[in-house]
């Protein structure tokens, strides 16, 4: 009874800590987004749908980040990390139209080639993806070692 009570408190403390950590991280990230959005306001005025695109990205990213934080200490933390990295890659590719953005305004066509930016962003995301996969393998490996030591 007493052991169970301590176990429950410990679990509650851990979950509270995880939620707190996730909240702080999400708040910080949202703060960065909030500051950046002020700088991006002129672009949002000029490019229709830009604000919505960034908001969708930030929402999904924050959601996956919070899930990853809550699932920390389990293999799902790394799973969500990998999903987050893949989401960033795919979202950037699709939303940036493969790196060549074409806009039309006042009878003029504006073409911006940001393939270099996209390439660097994809490489960074791939690094994050690889890290998550390796961490998941390491996590499962450690868990398997602990299990084998029990026997």
């Amino acid at each position, binding site marked *: 009874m007493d052991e169970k009570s301590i176990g429950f408190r410990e679990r509650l403390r851990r979950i509270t800590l995880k939620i707190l950590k996730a909240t702080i991280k999400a708040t910080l990230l949202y703060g960065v987004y909030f500051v*950046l959005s002020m700088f*991006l306001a002129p672009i949002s005025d000029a490019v229709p749908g830009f604000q919505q695109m960034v908001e969708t990205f930030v929402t999904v990213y924050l959601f996956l980040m919070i899930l990853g934080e809550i699932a920390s200490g389990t293999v799902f933390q790394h799973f969500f990390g990998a999903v987050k990295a893949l989401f960033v890659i795919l979202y950037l590719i699709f939303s940036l139209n493969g790196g060549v953005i074409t806009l039309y305004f006042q009878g003029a066509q504006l*073409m911006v*080639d940001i393939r*270099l*930016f996209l390439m660097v962003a994809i490489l960074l995301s791939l690094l994050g993806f690889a890290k998550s996969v390796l961490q998941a393998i390491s996590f499962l490996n450690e868990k398997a070692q602990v299990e084998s030591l029990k026997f």
Partner: protein
Amino acid sequence: MISIATTFLWLFLITFCVSVAYSIKDVQFNFEEPNVSVTKSNELLFSSSTSILNKGYYNIDSFNLTTKVLDRESFTLACQSTFVPVIEKNKKTIVNHTVTVNFNDLLQNSQDYLFNDTELKLYMIVGMKLADVIPVQVSTNLSLPWGAPLYNFTIGKIRYGVDNATSVKATIPISFENHAPFDLNGTVKIKIYNNNDVFLGDGETSIEAPQGSSYQDYVEVSVKNAETISDSGRLEVYIQTSLFSYGPMVISYG
């Protein structure tokens, strides 16, 4: 360690992109209306001046302004580019861009440019590299009003009078308005043929029509054999100026 490195790289990448985007906002482009004039080599010169005030954080590299002049059928008459290697930050740069068009090339596809006010198509492409790494291209179609040099070219009714004992003098009134952005100096030559296609005679007159003026004069033709004159027939009109040569323009009379 990797997490810290990637976080820093992400921050750098995002900050760089935001600063570039923010920087574009502070670049002011001022395109002036293109002017049309005539060069010494008798070609049409389209010139425009563009001032660029770069108040952004980065230099603008490889600024390239290309203009294509197209006729109504979208046939390229001329294409010229102006290249500026660097537009430094916090500096104002003026780019003078010119395109020359041979008037005869313009007439090759349509003589409409001689007689009717119309418009020329301009296709402008502005290319540049922002912060050394982001290529940007802006393209637009513009139309430039074109005033015909021989607008409303009209041949009046031919009047015949006695020249001397053996010949008859035909007086052919001509009139037009010069709407073109240049003065028109040259000659008009007219050949008369009767309804049996027999050549009756020819005459020539010089024309001087400053831009925006109306021109009215007549061409005198001496017809040697008065018996060959008929009520109807055709005129062949040849126009020769320093800018273009045109003819024969066949006009029926009678």
